[in-house]
């Protein structure tokens, strides 16, 4: 399966899993889907027959709330049956809302933000001490970078020259209530990593060519005499691939309900389905899908700062973007 096919599968599984479970975080699943797809199709060394294979690359998914994306990639890569994805969030399932190492293929449990980079750095440090050749990949969220512990790990990884560590930040520019810049400013994000000593590659993180090129560049960086770790800042759109979810913070928590939400999400995915990919749930798409009606909640601004009218002497709403579009936010 190529990366585009896998990314489509991740999105399709993500819609189904959150639809069935009433689970949150579909917006983050959609933003990170391309990163995870490229990692599993083109980058990470793994062996589903032997998930603990010593020479595998390690993978730490620090934004554990988007675990549905990783579960989908693992199932599609042969770690367990695709059928099991339907148990997401269910009683007795192995697929908790946030990833757990009790599932084969998960190297590290996460869910509390700000832990994953330290864990990946510890793995990379141990590998370097033991002169092992594998790499350690960590995928972080950008809102997660509010956590101070991330920057402890950033300093550590640079100081110990962990050139076997590659970090990808799913920079979807949103956290859980609003855009980052209306929550806690993180820009100039790349400059911050650079100031901490890292190689920084900034790309469009929903573009597979750019992702693949970035991972190649990261591999080249690892050979450079400076031995610095590399971060790929993958600029993505939260909700990417389902137009009405894009840039709409509503879809951080909301799941696609029965009716137009589910039907439109599936229909839109089918409009962009790569060839030779099968949809296990609705093989031919949805016949006579329910469409949204006037008054349905599309294109509305659900960011907290939209209705947070403080008299504090500083301007606190600093960016916005039109919900339901893929435009980048602009400064107010």
């Amino acid at each position, binding site marked *: 399966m190529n990366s585009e096919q896998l990314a489509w599968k991740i999105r399709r599984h993500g819609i189904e899993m959150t639809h069935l479970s009433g689970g949150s975080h579909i917006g983050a699943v959609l933003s990170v889907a391309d990163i995870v797809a490229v990692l599993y199709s083109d980058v990470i060394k793994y062996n589903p027959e032997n998930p603990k294979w010593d020479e595998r690359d390690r993978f730490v998914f620090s934004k554990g709330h988007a675990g549905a994306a990783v579960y989908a990639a693992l199932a599609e890569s042969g770690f367990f049956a695709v059928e099991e994805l339907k148990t997401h969030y269910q009683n007795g399932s192995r697929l908790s809302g946030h990833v757990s190492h009790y599932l084969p293929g998960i*190297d590290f449990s996460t869910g509390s933000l700000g832990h994953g980079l330290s864990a990946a750095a510890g793995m990379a440090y*141990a590998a370097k001490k033991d002169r092992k050749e594998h790499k350690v990949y960590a995928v972080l969220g950008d809102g997660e970078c509010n956590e*101070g512990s991330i920057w402890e790990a950033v300093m550590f990884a640079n100081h110990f020259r962990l050139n076997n560590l590659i970090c990808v930040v799913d920079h979807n520019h949103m956290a859980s209530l609003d855009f980052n810049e209306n929550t806690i400013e993180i820009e100039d994000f790349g400059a911050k990593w650079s100031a901490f000593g890292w190689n920084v590659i900034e790309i469009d993180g929903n573009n597979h060519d750019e992702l693949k090129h970035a991972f190649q560049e990261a591999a080249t960086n690892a050979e450079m005499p400076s031995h610095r770790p590399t971060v790929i800042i993958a600029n993505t759109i939260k909700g990417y691939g389902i137009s009405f979810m894009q840039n709409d913070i509503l879809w951080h928590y909301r799941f696609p309900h029965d009716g137009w939400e589910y039907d439109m999400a599936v229909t839109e995915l089918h409009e962009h389905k790569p060839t030779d990919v099968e949809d296990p749930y609705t093989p031919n798409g949805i016949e006579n899908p329910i469409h949204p009606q006037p008054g349905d909640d599309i294109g509305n601004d659900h960011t907290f700062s939209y209705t947070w009218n403080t008299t504090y002497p500083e301007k606190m709403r600093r960016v916005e973007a039109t919900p339901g579009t893929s435009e980048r936010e602009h400064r107010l």
Partner: protein
Amino acid sequence: MRDTFVRTLIDLAKANKNIELITGDLGFGVLKPFWEQLPDQFTDIGIAEQNMTTVAAGMALEGKTVFTYSIGNFPTLRCLEQIRNDCAYHHANVKIVCVGGGLVYGSLGMSHHATEDLAILRALPDVVVMAPADLVEAEEATRAIAAYPGTCYLRLGRGGEKRIHEKIDAFQIGKAIKVRNGKDIAIFSTGAIFEEVDEAREILKNRGYSPAVYTFPTVKPIDRDVINDCSEKFDLIVTCEEHNIVGGFGGAVAEIMAEKGNRKASLLRVGLNDTYASVVGNQKYLRDQYGLSACKIADKIEEKING
């Protein structure tokens, strides 16, 4: 106790190249022998305990046995969630070492008093909690946790503790040690407060009592057998700890006793009376101020007996 720990760890680490020591930038004058003799197994990770603890977990998952080292509450409360999620949940081979359990750093102030750590660490599933009473227990505990596959907490005093035991036969995690025979009263002690407990026993002897004394180098898993046995044999069990009265060693003993039917013994818990130590002073002075000196312990026990 601190130096004993370092000496023992050097021994162990020389024999096992997978043993690593990480400090959160503490241990001046203490850890030097380790980094000089075993430079490739030592890391100063800087003043960043959250990162220290999770890096240790990551290394442990790659096959290392990682000791994290700091003082007071820094290696525990500062990074509690990292211990819970990243070490304990993963059964990671991380050994959290605190120097300065209790009121060791008395004059430095409340920030440096580790007085809730036993209760908090004990509440975490899959964490062994140890607080040795003397140098011999410290060495045995260090060896035992190094051999134990999983997350452990080792609470040390600082130095100058008395040697109680000549040697300990068959030291085991989870086993209490009888130090003195006696009757009617059994005093259970964990950690370095033992020196006060032993003196309290002398005071009580002079007043006509003859308490038995046990040390509990392991707070979790607690030695149920000794507690149950003593609950039947003695009239009074006294727990002593340099720690808050809530949830710690005394709490652990109380849990066992409360669930035991047909017991003869009642219970007296001695510890900090649910307060922070805000008075300024050294360890000895603060122990007395907060009711943990030998004399105050003996008085409390006598008061309890005379009801």
